[in-house]
């Protein structure tokens, strides 16, 4: 009887008390090597508490980084083509830094051997690729209404071009 009580108390304490390792990670990405083994547990903590709207670390691919790019201020690659603002996501730079750092920790590191410059170049390329994948994907902020407008213009151009080709064909055949 006592043991289940102690276990449940321990779980409650861990759930409610602030997590030192998580704070360390949010401030300094390199400060907490223990976070390598903790991310799933951290997710569960966040889900249990009333939380900031952090995207859950479910995917490691570019889809995830797409969301990260939108968490901050309007991303560099996002082009507003309409007058209304389209950025309605909350800026959460510390969370995004933490999550980006956590992903870097979790991604399999390239195997290292001592001394080779070629290894260093390969590592550099891997880092470059990672940075590129972290960048928000370039997108256009166009409304559906404008998209339909340009689509109809393209359609009209296609019909006009087809009519021109047909007219030219008839002129040639008629000679």
């Amino acid at each position, binding site marked *: 009887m006592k043991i289940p009580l102690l276990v449940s108390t321990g779980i409650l304490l861990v759930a409610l008390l602030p997590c030192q390792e998580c704070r360390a990670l949010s401030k300094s990405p390199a400060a907490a090597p223990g976070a390598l083994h903790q991310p799933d547990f951290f997710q569960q903590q966040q889900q249990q508490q009333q939380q900031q709207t952090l995207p859950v670390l479910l995917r490691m*691919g*570019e*889809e995830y980084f*797409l969301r990260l790019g*939108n968490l901050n201020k309007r991303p560099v690659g*996002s*082009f*507003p*083509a309409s007058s209304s603002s*389209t950025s309605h996501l909350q800026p959460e730079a510390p969370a995004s830094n933490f999550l980006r750092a956590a992903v870097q920790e979790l991604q399999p590191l390239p195997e290292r051997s001592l001394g080779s410059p070629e290894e260093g170049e390969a590592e550099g390329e891997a880092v470059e690729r990672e940075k*590129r*994948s972290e960048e*928000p*994907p*370039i*997108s*256009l*902020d*166009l409304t*559906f209404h404008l*998209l*339909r407008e*340009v*689509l109809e*213009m*393209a*359609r009209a*151009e*296609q019909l006009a*071009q087809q009519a021109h*080709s047909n007219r*030219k*064909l008839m002129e*040639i*055949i008629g*000679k």
Partner: protein
Amino acid sequence: MPSAFQFQCHFILIFLAASKGETRYLEVRDAGEDEPFLLLSEDLKRELSAGQIYRRSLRCIDMLSIEGQFTFTADQPQLHCATFFIGEPEELITIDYDFVNIDCQGGDFLKVFDGWILKGEKFPSSLDHPLPTSQRYIDFCESGNIQRSIRSSQNVAMIFFRIHQPGNGFTITVKKTTNLFPCNVISQTPSGRFTMVIPHQHRNCSFSIIYPVVIKISDLILGHLNGLFLKKPSAGCAGVGDFVELLGGTGLDPSKMFPLADLCHSFHGSAQMKIGCDNTVLRMVSSGKHINRVTFEYHQLDLQEAENRKENSIEEFCFPSI
């Protein structure tokens, strides 16, 4: 036996005619004698093809649905430009770089995206496209010397470009090639008819209509092993490997849209639904074990039609957009 004898006689006659040179005579016969419109002379063909390449200049925000050669020249710094490409459902887009004069080191870029991306939402979605998002962008500044011809995986593509220096620009040639089994499609028109076939392929295919529509599914064939249901049909299509779902939403990405209906049993007849969303998607999920096929028609939903109900229709989901 008489038929075999006749076949032998015919064969002998053909052989004799060929040996006499009769067939060669047919080839050189003047076209004007019989069918003047079928066979054109070489001069006429040359005149017809001369100047057939369509050319025009590109705008900063543009859409192209025809083949041709297109040139963009910046008259002022243009920092946020994109061109959409769209073809018929059974076409793929090929973009060739003919001439590119941009300053990559100075911050210019020219990127081709395999699909459309709008407000961060992609079509096809990441679930339906074979490549990850980063590989769907082909950057000229990184791979322009290696890859000068880029082909899309579906009937839509787009390019993003930024040019700081007036006078700089690029020229591209757009061609279309045939896609035998179209998978991910954006419809050019608010009305049409299409048959989607997934032959023994483990893939998901979406047909997107960026208009409020009435969609009528007339024929659905979802192959099941030996024509029997291996699993007891349950509520919804959960657990069924092959099914069709109707999605509606306000964005481009089918994975972010609302499921409105799902169909996991074959039927012949019509099932109609009015969907007043900005984007309507019919998506087929295929396990690869069967040949799946769905035929449907669609036309634009107008306000009057939204008010009238018809038989075999389901309540409209999105409010009609004006």
